[in-house]
């Protein structure tokens, strides 16, 4: 079970979702968070997912990344259908091919920056590649802080460590859930640049949830979600275009709620 990074995929899509539904709860208080979503993310692209709060963005990301299992429909990563895998195999696949950057609480408090970054490789039973780790830490600008513990870093620095951890294993796809949500404009820009760079240089695929039009403008395309269904997309977006669409979506969402009432 060594790395399968070298395997060349036959299709050009890293992540494929087909008719994915996710329903929370049962009976009268069931909530349909995703209502039949089909989408494919091509290798080497940077996609932003946008939508009003509660539209199902996080749920979408969790299902796509194999952190959550859809109620129905299928998710395929590098041609591997996730539904077939048991918990252990699924975990191993995540470790090998997926990097995840959470909105907060990304790092183990007990470990230093260096140890946190090396952790996925160690979990895989490999010796950490010191040179690669150092290079990635330098790239996120934390080469000199590698001995610190997360408690001693600012929020933006912690987020950058999490990205370094996701990058160092060179996964096929990186998922990020509002990685800039808690950051100031300048730090957010740094973090987004860090996410975009490997897409260009290494053909990595990045899927990022955000509610910030400026953040979305770093992506190659923006996909909009509303009430658990896809609501259009934009290619090579600008911040203004995105903001405009969002206002529109927000209005529609409010309208649909009013109708429902």
């Amino acid at each position: 079970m060594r790395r399968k990074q070298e395997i060349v995929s036959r299709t050009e899509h890293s992540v494929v979702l087909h008719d994915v539904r996710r329903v929370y709860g049962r009976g009268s208080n069931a909530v349909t968070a995703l209502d039949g979503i089909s989408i494919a993310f091509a290798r080497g692209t940077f996609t932003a997912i946008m939508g009003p709060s509660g539209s199902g963005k996080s749920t979408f990301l969790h299902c796509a990344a194999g952190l959550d299992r859809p109620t129905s429909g299928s998710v395929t990563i590098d041609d591997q259908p996730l539904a077939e895998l048991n918990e252990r195999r699924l975990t191993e696949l995540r470790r090998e091919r997926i990097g995840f950057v959470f909105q907060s609480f990304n790092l183990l408090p007990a470990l230093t920056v260096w140890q946190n970054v090396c952790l996925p490789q160690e979990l895989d039973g490999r010796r950490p590649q010191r040179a690669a780790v150092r290079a990635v830490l330098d790239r996120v600008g934390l080469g000199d802080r590698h001995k610190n513990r997360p408690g001693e870093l600012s929020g933006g620095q912690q987020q950058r460590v999490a990205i370094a951890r996701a990058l160092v294993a060179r996964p096929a796809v990186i998922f990020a859930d509002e990685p800039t949500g808690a950051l100031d404009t300048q730090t957010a820009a740094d973090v987004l640049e860090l996410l975009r760079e490997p897409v260009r240089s290494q053909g990595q695929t990045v899927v990022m949830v955000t509610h910030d039009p400026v953040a979305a403008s770093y992506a190659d395309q923006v996909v909009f979600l509303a009430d658990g269904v896809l609501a259009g997309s934009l290619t090579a977006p600008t911040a203004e275009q995105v903001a405009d669409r969002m206002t529109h979506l927000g209005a529609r969402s409010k309208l649909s709620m009013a109708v429902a009432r």
Partner: protein
Amino acid sequence: MMRLAVRTLRFRKGGFIATFVAVVFGTAIVMACGGLMETGIRSNVEPSRLAGAPIVVTGKQSHLRPGAEDATPLPERVGVPASLVAKIRSVEGVSAAIGDLTFPAIAPDVAEGHNWSSARLAPYRLTSGHAPADGQVVTGPGHRPGDRVTFLINGEPAHLVVSGVAAGPAGHAFFSDRDAAQLAGRPGRFADIGVLVASGTDIDAVKDRLQALDANITVSTGVDRGTAEHPGTEAQRTALIAIAGSFGGIATMTMMFVVASTLALSAQHREREFALLRGIGTTPGQVRRMILGESLLVSIPAVLLGCVPGIFLGRFLFDQLGSHGVASPVVEFSQGPIPFAAGAGAAVLAAIGAALIAARKSAKIRPLEALMEASLQRKWFSWVRLLFGLLFLGGGLALLIVTATVMSGPLAGATAGPSVLCWAIGVALLGPFWTKAVLLVLRWPVQALTGVNGRLAILNVSARSVAMSAAAMPVMLAVGISTANLYMQTTQVHAASEAFTRDLRADAVLVSPAGLSLKLLDQVRSVPGVASASAFVRSTGVIDEPRNAPFDEEGAPLLGVNAQGHDGTAPVRLTGGSLTGLTGSTVALPDYVASKIGRRIGSEITMTLGDGTAVKLRVVATFAAERGYETIILPAELVAAHTTDGLTKQILVRSDPGTDVRPALTKLAAAHPGVQVADRDALVASNIEDLQTQAWINYMLVGMLIAYTAVSVVNTLVSTTLRRRREFALQRLTGSTRTQVLRMLTTESTLIALTGILLGTLVALACLLPYAATVSTTALPTGPLWIYLVIITTATLLTFTSTLLPATTTLRHSPTQPTHTD
């Protein structure tokens, strides 16, 4: 995963301190119990006076009642028939067989007298003088040949001339064989027989041949010979094994419980961390291995550390048991590698078991949970939990009913003890439910008393009733278990002494460890103002026929008194016959026993007395006795003749109404060396001594349980408080002053302590009320109130300090820097 475990441990030392402490304690206690048990099993009493005889033959110190499964240990020395000596001599390989006589003979530096021929068994060697003729004695150094020495034998002074001085084990004097036979007072019997063999003989082969001679003898070699010199060690040995077993068992279970709860708590507090680990690609198996690795890393050093106090604790407990008469002081404490292995093994197993349970849950955590803010209210209810909770409560109820209806007297403890554990565990499993119930009751008074902060605290604990229950349950366990156990002891001791005192009609007691003679008894009776006087001797026996006597394999307590009329001192209320004819082979039975075995006045029963002698006895009287405290009454001479030392050590005196005979008795006692006059209280005290010992052992046990539960109380509260750092910081940012936060916590602690104490007291009462109703005449437990006050004060103090101290430290930091480490 081991590396991750090491790193986590280094960072989170605090979270594991409780586990560490619990394992250190547990190892030490289990190891100490192992040492006690090993000591009991080995019973290493070094042979000294019989060390020169490679084989010692004694009587069998137990009696199997016909139809019974377990033998009853005989407390008195059984001895061997003199005729056996000749038979032993004729056994192949035996070069000599020497009968040994042993009797109390008190003089300075001397406690026991023996026949001179048995001096060869040590061996003693004459350093001056010659062997004793009649009227002469050989003593240890300190006397010279020709000295006159006065011995107290059977309560009478005996003057002898020292014929020689011998070197050997101290404390013994040797009389001529004829004098010894007469003084020992058991014609035709030896205490034991020492067997000598020619050098080079196969001792084990000779031992087997000797054993084949007679089924009723015990043949010992090596270190076992020591018990022949001290026959009492056998009964104490069984007691020691039983105590070590139950003590060790409870200690092991408590250790598992505490270690499991501390580990579970620390795993529960790190759920987000585990979820994050799962999120970045840690498999469930790896999480499990990491938790297991952590607990091993904590417990192995703790086990090693625990072995150090374990060595001393075992010896300390043994010394304590020895000084309370439970263990024989002549037995050597031995603690080999087995107790060490048992202590270490039990502790490591407890840690692994607890870790596996904690790990099973943590490994199931889904990675998504890392993304959610830790929720206040965890789902606590599950059907399994309800089922077990109800099962335990049902068990508690069943035991309560059994205690109240089926059990009698002192036996009630056998069901009442476990019932409190059942109640406590049942309540703990359904903790949130009970906590909510108590909160509903407490809500209004607290709110009325404490205003705004009180309301906030009430809101807090109500919103977090699961967490609140987790904090209150250890308090409940500690209060419930300690209150129930301690008051069971005091109630039992009180009831037993009540049962004895109610019928005790003596006003004074004459006591002498060297024995009181019949002559002295006559002199006491003739003292003006003495209405009656009687010897008072205790032993244990067995009713063989009829076979259905209501006594277990411990045997029946025997009491020897003199024949007496209505004004007698015997502690009984006669219901039939009289004690005037209580001489020779007669007996007085408690009503319950008589009716159970279908005997009435004039009919006969067969008994085996304390030294194994079977006697046929005619029933001359029946009397009322408290159920569970039944004693069989025999003539004093009969009981005394069948005890190890054959002595009467107490004389009970009843005076004419309105007269104080004590001055006269004191004067009489002054003329007899060794005799002392004591009052009624001393007699009561000596009667409940056994109970006190039992109680003392239980106090020790309960103390340990309390210490243990205290560890879990402190651990739960401290770590829960530390985890709420962020919440406190937020409160301060929203305008609460530090004092206000602390005041809110104080109210919370009050609620936790109140809930724990209230539930604990209820649990204790559920056990104590039926228990008290059974052992005594009222349903109210008796005992000093201060015990309860100490328990609840300690519980309250523990709750407060373990909440407020960590909170104060946390609040010292600026609220603007909530730490990221939780």
